[in-house]
């Protein structure tokens, strides 16, 4: 037997939360000085990591988000009993309160911009054909040199494309967001991987802005998702500092 903690809430009552936990028992809130933990009883001491369980966990956190401001806890946070849950709330109280204030009334959106790297390389090679022609030759050295040049040019084209996406897509969305984070060239194909924390009242404007921007980039595939609980905007480093 154990307790699974799903999230910390800006809620100060002990009550049933009208949601089932991962083992089918009801989720309830355990309060501490104006905040609470959303927990449920578990028959097991470890969580199985499979798609169904992880997706179920995400659904629970989403359900909690519909009722309260949430700080999602990492999948698999299990403790022995209610007194340990209370201990967690007490120990990290200040950080939880600060994080709840930060994300209150806000939603997370994710955006990935994906590019067909082969297409970009082909385009780039066509543009630079004249340059490669000058190096034409059959010696292994020249062949090697040509290949390396092609790779270099292809890389440059992708970086240039990514910079254009950051300027033309990320920047206007960032301007509408409360907070945002991005990675350029997260992989060869994902040239932009960004997350945005958006005030709830700006949600519709934010989505419309994305739709407008998307029309200008026919050659880029976008994956726009949300609203999510604020998984990416919790200051976990603060929690670490407090432990030290």
């Amino acid at each position, binding site marked *: 037997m154990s307790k699974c903690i799903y999230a910390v809430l800006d809620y100060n009552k002990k009550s049933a939360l009208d949601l089932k936990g991962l083992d089918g028992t009801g989720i309830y809130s355990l309060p501490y000085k104006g905040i609470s933990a959303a927990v449920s009883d578990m028959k097991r001491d470890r*969580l199985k990591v*499979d798609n169904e369980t*992880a997706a179920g966990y*995400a659904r629970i956190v989403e359900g909690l988000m519909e009722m309260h401001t949430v700080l*999602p806890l*990492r999948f698999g*946070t299990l403790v022995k009993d209610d007194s*340990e849950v209370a201990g967690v709330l007490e120990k990290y109280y200040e950080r939880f309160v600060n994080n709840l204030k930060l994300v209150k009334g806000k939603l997370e959106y994710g955006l990935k911009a994906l590019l067909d790297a082969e297409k970009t390389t082909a385009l780039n090679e066509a543009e630079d054909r004249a340059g490669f022609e000058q190096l034409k030759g059959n010696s292994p050295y020249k062949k090697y040199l040509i290949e390396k040049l092609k790779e270099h040019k292809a890389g440059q084209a992708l970086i240039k494309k990514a910079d254009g996406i950051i300027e033309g897509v990320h920047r206007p969305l960032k301007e509408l967001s409360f907070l945002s984070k991005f990675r350029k060239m997260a992989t060869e194909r994902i040239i932009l991987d960004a997350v945005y924390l958006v005030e709830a009242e700006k949600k519709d404007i934010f989505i419309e802005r994305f*739709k407008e921007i998307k029309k200008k980039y026919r050659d880029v595939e976008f994956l726009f998702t949300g609203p999510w609980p604020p998984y990416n905007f919790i200051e976990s480093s603060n929690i670490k500092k407090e432990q030290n």
Partner: protein
Amino acid sequence: MDDVIAKSKEVTLLEILDRVLNKGVIISGDIVISVADVDLIYLGLKVLLSSVETMERLRGAPIYSPYQEPS
């Protein structure tokens, strides 16, 4: 998440798993981040492999979002 603009079922699952397994508050020290019987269908995908590996490696230790610089 009814108003998500674009998501296919599989891609959405990946987005969900990336958040659930890689993000969120880590409580470390006296509490164990507990996972068992790893059984993910999408093992071919880097994001999930790294998620599971990260959890196994850093049980009980705080980790950071890839977007965040450790302070």
